[in-house]
């Protein structure tokens, strides 16, 4: 049973604070993804859990053991590095067995565990090779294999797919998901790629400037973002956010009260194109980007803003054509002046 508890965790490099107090509970067997723009502290937080960075303040528990001052190797965690960090002077087999050897695991058991891990990752044929003789995907698998052989309680992944090309990335993503299903261990995964986060995570932790913005399942984050930052970070293309004033009139005409909201968010995929003159918003198409299954429309609104619309191909408007835009009530996100979400959109009294 391996949960993780982070209590008001802080990290400073010199006088700059990079992790500004993080509280988080990771449940046993959960797949948690840390996501955020570069410099948000997600990697640092992972490295603090690994024991590669010391903890400036706060408490870190793995299971019920306080590990702030426990050496990395004694924390029961294994890490897959971004660059894989395979030892170039050791063959694949010795790379995987290295940690066991250091821990003085008997040779037969070492052998058995390496063989097991190699079999489960289809690495048997590569055991005698050196890292430089492997392709990117193979190296990635060896790095995972090395993490598996130690039977860690917690797996840590630091942007493990960012050095792979797009096709391989999709493939390895599914392999990692399968691995989690098979092993059932607690896993913490860092990425800046929101698709990776959405597809892999039980829960996503969105970080910005050393603080947690929101924690929740992928669906929660998508459907009920807690604030403007999360709303625009999750989802692609990103959410349109319009000043409340631009829709206030049309909404109240339908008997909806926008209340204290300052901004209204609408996901491009939730907006539909209707006849010019009708709909919640009016504007003119300025650009059409055909992407195959859908077309992305850039619509210049009357108020001067631009809205992105994902159009599925029916009744395609021409560039320059005036259109109306419509969106269902439940797909509108309201934000206050601080960028915090307000819910739900209330019927006017």
């Amino acid at each position, binding site marked *: 049973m391996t949960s993780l508890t982070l209590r008001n965790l802080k990290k400073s490099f010199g006088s700059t604070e990079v992790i500004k107090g993080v509280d988080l509970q990771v449940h046993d067997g959960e797949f948690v993804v840390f996501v955020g723009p570069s410099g948000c502290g997600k990697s640092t937080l992972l490295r603090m859990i690994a*024991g590669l960075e*010391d903890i400036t303040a706060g408490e870190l528990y793995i299971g019920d*053991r306080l590990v702030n*001052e*426990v*050496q990395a*190797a*004694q*924390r*029961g*965690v*294994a890490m897959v590095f971004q660059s894989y960090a395979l030892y170039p002077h050791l063959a694949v087999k010795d790379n995987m067995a290295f*940690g*066991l050897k250091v*821990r003085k*695991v008997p040779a037969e*058991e070492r052998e058995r565990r390496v063989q097991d891990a190699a079999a489960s990752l289809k690495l048997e044929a590569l055991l005698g090779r050196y890292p430089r003789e492997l392709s990117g995907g193979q190296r990635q698998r060896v790095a995972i294999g090395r993490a598996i052989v*130690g*039977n*860690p*309680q917690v797996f840590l992944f630091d942007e493990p797919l960012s050095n792979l090309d797009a096709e391989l990335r999709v493939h390895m993503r599914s392999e990692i998901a399968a691995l989690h299903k098979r092993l059932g261990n607690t896993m913490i995964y860092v990425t800046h790629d929101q698709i990776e986060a959405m597809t892999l995570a039980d829960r996503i932790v969105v970080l910005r400037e050393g603080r947690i913005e929101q924690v929740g399942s992928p669906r929660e984050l998508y459907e009920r973002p807690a604030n403007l930052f999360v709303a625009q970070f999750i989802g692609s293309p990103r959410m349109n956010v319009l000043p409340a004033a631009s829709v206030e009139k049309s909404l109240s005409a339908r008997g909806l009260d926008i209340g204290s909201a300052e901004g209204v968010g609408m996901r491009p995929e939730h907006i539909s194109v209707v006849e010019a003159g009708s709909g919640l918003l009016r504007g003119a198409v300025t650009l059409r980007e055909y992407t195959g299954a859908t077309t992305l429309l850039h619509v210049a609104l009357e108020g001067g803003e631009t809205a992105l619309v994902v159009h599925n191909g029916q009744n395609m408007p021409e560039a320059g054509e005036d259109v109306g835009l419509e969106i269902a009530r439940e797909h509108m996100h309201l934000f206050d002046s601080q960028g915090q979400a307000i819910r739900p959109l209330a019927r006017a009294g």
Partner: protein
Amino acid sequence: MADTLTDKTSARPWRAPRLSLRRREAIEAWLFVSPTVAGFLVFFLGPLLAVMYFSLTEWNLLTQEATFVGVKNYVDALSVNPDFWHVLRNSFVFAIGLVPLNMTLALTLALALSRPFRGVVFFRTVFFAPVVTSAVAWAIVWRFLLQGEAGAVNQLLASVGIDGPNWLREPDWAMVAVIVTRVIKMVGLNMILYIAALQAIPRDYEAAARLEGASNWQIFRMVIWPLLAPTTLVIFVITMIGSFKVFDHIYLMTGGGPENGTLVLAFYIYEQGFKFFNVGYASALAMIMFVIVLVLTVIQMTLRRKDMR
């Protein structure tokens, strides 16, 4: 499932207070550097402070005791003892003769050998060979070659009708001889440094200059030479310092003679300290050498900093 990643002992409820990871790293680091630090203190910093002190004392050979005499040794060197200025002059003549000759030759050879052609490895190997040879062996052989009439060099000169001087017995020629043979011994090192620097210059610069119609000389003068400036500065200082500490070469080729014509600072320190046991005076000379080297180093550092800006 065996839990190899968890240290069972540290999972016990009570632990002795342990060092923070940071503290631990610092202690380990000092353990790593401790042999170096100990050696540095005992064989460098200690002696450096000692030589400062020694330079203010006079050593009595019979009683083996040091008496404090203040700056007397420095006064002796700078104004009383006529040898000192002579020696310093020799050291500067040696350096001023050696450094430009060495650097010009090194750069010329490097320019010729920085591009691949058939034979380039052969020539690099040849020009570098004296560098790996012991200075003692080099000096012995050249002393043999440069003997008065019987020496191979003079016999070679005689065969084309030149009456060569007795190289190592005439003060001026002796200086020329030690400088030239030292340059041949050491030029390979600077040549290699210049070759490395030349090969690090992107070929595009030269190509661009050539497209604009620059001649070889213009390319060298306006593109290559400015880009080599940091290397030239380093080589200049290294060679300069090296020429001030030259000892074995002179000890074996001329023994400082003739008529002290090649008596340079390093040799003078050795002679005063270990032949005449003027420990205080020799220490003052060592301090003067220290200051000269220090000034050269500081000049290099300031120029380099300016260069970076």
